[in-house]
């Protein structure tokens, strides 16, 4: 098999296995559907481009998280104007309907929408840290992705969780 075909097949396999990372990072950074499509395309493009430089030092999931988060953070910085035309409630509702969840899960879906809206309202690095923590990654893995020490991950996550809790306070009171 030639290297190009190898790369294409590896790309497909990884994308099937780790599609959730791409989707969750995209939604965390770009709740509006048009922006989400744009960011997802950019992330996939960066994954495809960077794949040739993957040397196997990191686990595929760690590597994918890095590319996704770096791309999303760069995209977000470069598109500050998107913030102005962004309407969180409507956009998140639209994304959620695509998931096609059953009606009895409406409360959970609403909570998820609010969670994404809250993550989106966090400062840049917190916005990257919170999805990693919600995905259940250990401090060691988060440290590998971010380049922080495990101690700093702990401190930064505590702060990020507090900020998230503050943002979610009104929402959870409403849902409970």
């Amino acid at each position, binding site marked *: 098999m030639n290297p190009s075909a190898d790369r294409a097949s590896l790309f497909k396999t990884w994308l099937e296995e780790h599609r959730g990372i*791409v989707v969750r990072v995209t939604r965390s950074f770009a709740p509006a559907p048009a922006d989400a499509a744009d960011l997802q395309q950019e992330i996939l493009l960066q994954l495809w481009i*960077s794949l040739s430089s993957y040397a196997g030092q990191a686990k595929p999931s760690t590597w994918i998280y890095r590319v996704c988060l770096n791309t999303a*953070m*760069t995209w977000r910085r470069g598109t500050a104007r998107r913030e102005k035309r962004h309407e969180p409630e409507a956009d998140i509702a639209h994304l959620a309907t695509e998931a096609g969840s059953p009606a009895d899960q409406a409360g959970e879906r609403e*909570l998820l929408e609010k969670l994404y809206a809250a993550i989106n309202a966090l400062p840049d*690095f917190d916005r990257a840290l919170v999805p990693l923590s*919600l995905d259940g990654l250990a401090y060691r893995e988060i440290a590998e992705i971010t380049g922080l020490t495990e101690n700093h991950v702990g401190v930064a996550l505590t702060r990020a969780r507090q900020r998230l809790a503050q943002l*979610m306070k009104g929402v959870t009171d409403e849902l409970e």
Partner: protein
Amino acid sequence: MNWNDYEAVWKRQELPVGAGADLPRLRETFETKRRRLAATLLVRDLLETSAGLFASGVFAYVWWHIGKEGWPIALAIILMLGLSGFFLRERLRAHRHRLGPDAPLLARLEAEIAGLRHQRHLLLNLWSWYLAPCAGAIVIFVATLVRLLITQAPPELFTKLWEHPIVVVGVILPVVAVQFLVFWGVWALNRRAVRKGVEPRLAELEKLHRDLLAPN
């Protein structure tokens, strides 16, 4: 509700349909973007380096016509070539320090901070590496031509000219003023770029970096 509830909801979420990648389209987009980026970079690098090379070429051509008398123009050529070399060195430096999207987030943040600090340093010291060499080269070039003109022109021409100093001043002053305004404009625009663009961004990233590495 607490963090565990959020985590549970997060993990149970369904993935939207069609979140996969259309590989042929992706390759096509990549090729288009790569070509566009390569063309943009080529034009930018050519403009930056070729301006100095072009000026050097013009100076060299004039020197060749003047002959040995025009030897100071060599200094102007050295200054302009030095400027082109500086731009080239900066491009290579930027290329060497660039981190890919698969680098750890903190390393990318630190690289960006270092890049912005370097950019600020360059823009604040524009006079030393850009304006001074350009102005120096222009002064040397013009002075050489004027000196040659004075030695080769009939002496009575200058006698007559000095009788009308207002004409001499009227010719020289606008040229110097325009030159000064151009250089001042370039300097002011770059100071503004530092104040409005580089420094706020740098302060934001430095604060983020400090917060991330704060002990508690």
